[in-house]
């Protein structure tokens, strides 16, 4: 229990950010990259010449 409290502290989070930048930046890149790829893929679908407000 004590170990988990230590693990979830702000200090440990900040040191995680400092020590493992590649890991969290990688996650950030993958998530945003996937969003952009998906948006680009689906927006390439032949679209209606007119769109409707939903």
């Amino acid at each position, binding site marked *: 229990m004590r170990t*988990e409290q230590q*693990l979830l502290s702000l200090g440990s989070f900040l040191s995680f950010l400092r020590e493992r930048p590649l890991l969290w930046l990688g996650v950030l890149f993958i*998530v945003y990259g996937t*969003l952009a790829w998906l948006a680009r893929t689906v927006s390439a679908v032949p679209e209606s010449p007119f769109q409707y407000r939903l």
Partner: protein
Amino acid sequence: MTPQDSPRRPAAARFLVGVLYAAIPTALALTATELGTKALHLGVRQVDETRGFDPRAQYLLPDSQVPGGFVTQFYDGDDGETHILPRSDNPRVMLFGGSNVQGFPEEHLEQLLERDLGLDLEINNLGREGYGSGRVSILFEQSMELGMDLAVVYAGHNEFVEAGFRQEVQASREGFAATAAETLRGLRTFRALEQHFAPPEQSGPPSPEAFEADDAVFRQFRYSDTLAQLEQFESNLERIVVKAREAGVPLVLVTTIGNYFSAPQSWTPPADFDPALWAKLEQRLRMLYESLPDPVGAAIRVEPERRLRRNDWLDRPDPLAPGFELPRLRTSPAPHTELAPYWRRPETWTERGIQHMRRLDSLLHDEVLAPERAALEQASGELQQLLDLVPDHPLAHYMLGLIQLRFGREPQAYEHLHQAAIYDRAPRKTSTLHNDIVRRLAQRHAAEGVHLVDLETQWQARYPGGLFGFEVMWDSCHMHPQARRRLVEDLAPPLTALLRP
């Protein structure tokens, strides 16, 4: 051993916490972009991929310029939208349908009705090119809040345009990307990205015909699929009937008219037909089609690029040669000779359009000489043999219909040209099949304020053998402006009777 006693627990916990820490920056970034896109009004609108088939799509919006008024949302902009004024004491008539209705001269109809009724009234034309009964039924339902005294529906030509759209939409929604995108559209960030990558909007009024599904989507369409689509047509009309009844609005269902001389769009083998035999028959049909003597051979235009379209009647680059004679085609006999000038002004016709009309004119009026007669008789026999094997082959019926017309055998021509329209797997014009649905519905709901105006029967009665086409239309179903004028004159008397106080 309890989980807490597990020697793996600290390592697993560290791993989970590591995952959590790695995810926190992304979650914070997403929260920031969600708030940022909101502040910047990005990703506001959700793109509707369904071309308006989604009942949630709003076809009518409150008119920001006129309190109490509405404006259509047909074009995603103000160009060409219809403004509906706040309800007044004047009787209000609403017209619903596709491009033919959109082209109805509603002001002419209004004048006729006002003259006959002796009162002011208001006609709103909610026809929109490309709309079939699917979208018309949604629009109709939403229009009930506008209030109206009479609704007129002229629909059916676009059933397979809508079917093609649906197939495209369905195809675009298959696969992981489409499914994931559907979920992610909940995020403004994603919608903003989607809008960023979307192709630039067209300039000027968009043309849904440019997006018409390629015939390729119908290559697997069996006749059972065609009939299923017609069931959908009936069920859409039924929805319209129910909505009108619930709102207490008298409804006029109108049978539609198509070009009997335009070729069928699509044909596929009957269910369980031997593919090898089908390929052989198709090859034979192709040879027959190519070897038919003119003018029948030249009059058959099956390939999309050879079919006549609107622009063939509008885009003449140079003046007509002096002494140009208007083709006769099938001039309506007395007492309807006034139907003869139902042409757009010939000065605007392209050579392509003129040549096709000349061929049809030859087909209808020139003498059949012996060699041509022999060739056509032989082709006719072969087509009949093909129809013995595949009785619902629309192209074979069509070719046979034109041959019979060349021989002046109108009843046989009528029969085959009608069969060609009925068995077309993806018709771009209505046939008796569509119109029988309209008649049936009107009859079934006659006691509930549903009325029938049978224009098909009315127009058939005006032409020799009940057949007409390019006299009044520039393609398979679109009427020349003068013909539309005549059509609303046919509509006026029954509408007057229904509106009379």
